[in-house]
Structures are given as structure tokens and as C-alpha cells.
């Protein structure tokens, strides 16, 4: 089973524009108003990915531990800002909290995977670390964003019950415990669902990539199993940390609810 990647030439790549023309045609035919974002998105995809391709080639070549750490931390920073922005119920949230949760869960799980499971030589090999950490980050980012949004949304809609518990002397934790559980559940559910249907409904992107790249599907599957489990672990840790760091922000120092929780959403 000796296969290898079939390279895509520049000409063939340009041919993929046809695909975007189809999407654009549908958009303008139905007047969806999506033509401009579609074109802009296409340009960005080409530019961003081309630059990343060159950058990764360079990074893989010098393979410096410090540089890799800086890059992964930078990825965490961007992901933490995006995760807060994607939570419509949440305003004025310090992205440092989501950064800490993302950074800790990604480095913990990522290190376990690279050092103990894949163990490349050297263990911080950029070719392994960057894609693995990137996959963890992307999924954890979505998870914590859902968790955070659910925490704020649930607290707001159940503020009367929470406050009633406070009037009986409940601590902030006792008053929101139920919502905290719901929030973590909301963050983890998509990951758990994907564990259930993986391979049946769709082949995960990483596995597809490896197979297209000429890998033995049986090898690709082994990698994919590791990836799925590491994502589940990282999402669980990330959501738990973030919600744990965040729920107290809903209360003032005296343990009463903050005014913004009691008002309707603006």
C-alpha cells in the first residue's frame, strides 16, 4: 500500500474558484446578500492559509522550543478573544480568564499527547505539537464559548431563583451550582456527540487529511482516536476551569447578585 500525496498544481488550485462561483451564483440568484462576505472570505482563505503554509514550513525547519511555545501561546490569545466574542450573553468579560482556561487545558492535554502518547523526537517537534495543540484549541474554544454563554444566560433567566436562594443564606456557589452544571454540560455536549457519530456520519478532518496525504487508513484511525479523546479531555478541563473562574463575577463581594444579572439584556 505504497501511496503518496497527489500534489495540487497552481492551475488546479485556481480551478477550485469554480466552486466559489457556484456558491456566489446561488447567493446572487436568491439575493442573499452573501456575495461580498463570500468573496472576502475566499480571499482571506487563500491569503491566510498560504501565509500559514510558508510560516509552518519555516517553523518546522528551525523547530525551536521557545518559538513553538510563543506561537501556541499566541494561538491561545486569539482563541480566548474569539471565544468571548462568540458568547452573545456575555459583555465586558475579561479575556484573561478565558485565556488562562484555554492555555492551561491546552498545555496540559497537549503535553500528555505529545510526550506520552505520540512521543516524537524531540518531544516538542513542531510538526506534531502545532497541529495537535491547534486542534485542541479550536475545539476547546468552541466549548468554553458555549459554557460561558450558557452560564450567563442561565443565571440571567433564573436570577429570581438564585436570589431567593441567597435570601435564605446560600453562598454564590450554592446559589448557582445548578447553572454551573448546565453550563459545563452545554460546553461538553457537542464533543460527546461527536464521539458518538465519528466515522459514521463524516470522517474527521484530520483523518481525511492523512488519508488524502497517502497514509494507511488504519494508521489514520489510530491518530484520530487519540485526537478525539484528547479533545474531550481538553474541553472538559477548559469548561470546568472557565466556569469555575467566572461564576463569582456574577456576584459582588458581599455575595449578592450583580445588577446586570437582574436587568434584561440590552
Amino acid at each position: 500500500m505504497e501511496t503518496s500525496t497527489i500534489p495540487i498544481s497552481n492551475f488546479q488550485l485556481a480551478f477550485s474558484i469554480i466552486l466559489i462561483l457556484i456558491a456566489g451564483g446561488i447567493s446572487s440568484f436568491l439575493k442573499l446578500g452573501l456575495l461580498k462576505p463570500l468573496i472576502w472570505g475566499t480571499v482571506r482563505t487563500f491569503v491566510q492559509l498560504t501565509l500559514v503554509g510558508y510560516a509552518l514550513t519555516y517553523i518546522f525547519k528551525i523547530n525551536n522550543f521557545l518559538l513553538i511555545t510563543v506561537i501556541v501561546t499566541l494561538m491561545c490569545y486569539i482563541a480566548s478573544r474569539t471565544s468571548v466574542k462568540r458568547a452573545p450573553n456575555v459583555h465586558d468579560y475579561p479575556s484573561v480568564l478565558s485565556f488562562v482556561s484555554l492555555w492551561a487545558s491546552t498545555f496540559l492535554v497537549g503535553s500528555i499527547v505529545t510526550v506520552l502518547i505520540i512521543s516524537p523526537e524531540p518531544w516538542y517537534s513542531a510538526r506534531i505539537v502545532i497541529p495537535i495543540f491547534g486542534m485542541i484549541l479550536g475545539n476547546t474554544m468552541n466549548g468554553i464559548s458555549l459554557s460561558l454563554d450558557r452560564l450567563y444566560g442561565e443565571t440571567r433567566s433564573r436570577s429570581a431563583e438564585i436570589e431567593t436562594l441567597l435570601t435564605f443564606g446560600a453562598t454564590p456557589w450554592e446559589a448557582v451550582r445548578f447553572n454551573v452544571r448546565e453550563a459545563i454540560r452545554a460546553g461538553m455536549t457537542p464533543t460527546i456527540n461527536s464521539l458518538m457519530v465519528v466515522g459514521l456520519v463524516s470522517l474527521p478532518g484530520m483523518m481525511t487529511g492523512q488519508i488524502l496525504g497517502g497514509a494507511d487508513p488504519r494508521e489514520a484511525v489510530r491518530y484520530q482516536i487519540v485526537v478525539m479523546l484528547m479533545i474531550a479531555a481538553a474541553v472538559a478541563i477548559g469548561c470546568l476551569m472557565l466556569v469555575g473562574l467566572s461564576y463569582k463575577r456574577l456576584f459582588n463581594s458581599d455575595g449578592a447578585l450583580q445588577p446586570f444579572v437582574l436587568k434584561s439584556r440590552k
Partner: protein
Amino acid sequence: MLFAFKNITYSFGFAQIRQMTVSATLNSGQVLIIRGPSGAGKSTLLRVLARLQPCADGEVFLQGRNWSQIPGTVWRSKVHYLAQKPVLFDGTVADNLVRPFEIRVNSKKKFDPHLAKKKMQELLLADDLWEQDARTLSGGEAARLALIRALLTDPEIIMLDEPTAALDERSRDAFYAVLSRWLAGRDKAAILISHNNEYGHLSCISFLDLAASRGGE
């Protein structure tokens, strides 16, 4: 003197924010009735006293202790505020009555189902409501259940925001009877916001008129 608040200065209102400074004292068995037109800051005052929201200035004393010496959770379990709109938790009527006793600060208090059922009878709630889903209660039933839940935890000061608003005349009389029995001969006091001038069997009533003391600032 069981309970006193001195120069409590707080702001309230939404469109137009006003500030107010009030003081009052309560002895054991006493009922303080807060009166005033709507928008006079009556509910806000009770929320401040229950430490559900901060105030700009002032001190409150419970049994001679300054409120700054008592943690918020302990304070709120002793100075209990019952909102006007009754809030019930998911679950049965019984679940609702037990729930406050599951909070750590109340772990020394014991839930007594017989006392709870007795209070329900006194407030004209049928026995067979016990296992009913609390969310299916009528407005008046929900208000009485919330009152019973508050009384069962036996706070030192009970602050009731228009407790009789959703009650008919018969249950209103029953409520005043229950409250005066709860107060009688014990180191307890109550603060009520009330719009009507019927106070049934309540004795030892004093009044605080908020419209009159407006303009602290």
C-alpha cells in the same frame, strides 16, 4: 432593641435616580410597616437591609452587632427578605419547603414536616398540595407557600414585600394571625411593606413613611 438601621443612604429608581436616608429601630415582637407611594424606594430599602444590594452609607445592627461584623450569607439567613412576586423552585411543594434547609448556613436548623403541614393548614392550603408540582400553584397559593417557606426557616427579622397583595380577605386574615403568632413572645420582628390599612391581629405596629422622609440629598 433587636434591630436598628441608622442613616441608611441608598439610591433607587430607574429613569430618575434618587437618593434617600432613613433610620428606624425595632424591638422584639414589633412590626414596622413601610408606607409610601410606588416608586418611593420601599422595596429597595428592604433589599438593602437584606444585603441583596449595596448602599452608599449607613449602619444596621442586629442584636447589637454591626452588620459589617456578620458575613453576607449569615446575615441574609437571619434577616430574610421575601420578594413580592413569589419565586418557587422546580419540584413539589414539599421540595420547596425543604430546599432552604439544604443550604449550609442553615444546617443547624431542622426541617419539621409536621410544623410545615400545620402552617399550610393555618394559611388555608389543602394537605394534598404537599406532593403537587409547585409551578402549577395559583398566584395566591404560591404567595402563601413562599410565606410558609420563609417562616419555617425562622429568621430573626422577616421582611415581607406586600405579602397580602395576592391574597383574598380570608387568607389575608389568616396570614396576619400566623404572623402575629410567629412573633408572639419571641425575639423576632417583622418589616412589612403594605398598601392597605388592615393589619388584622397585629399588635406593636409602627410606621415608616417613605414619601415623608424623601430628600435626604
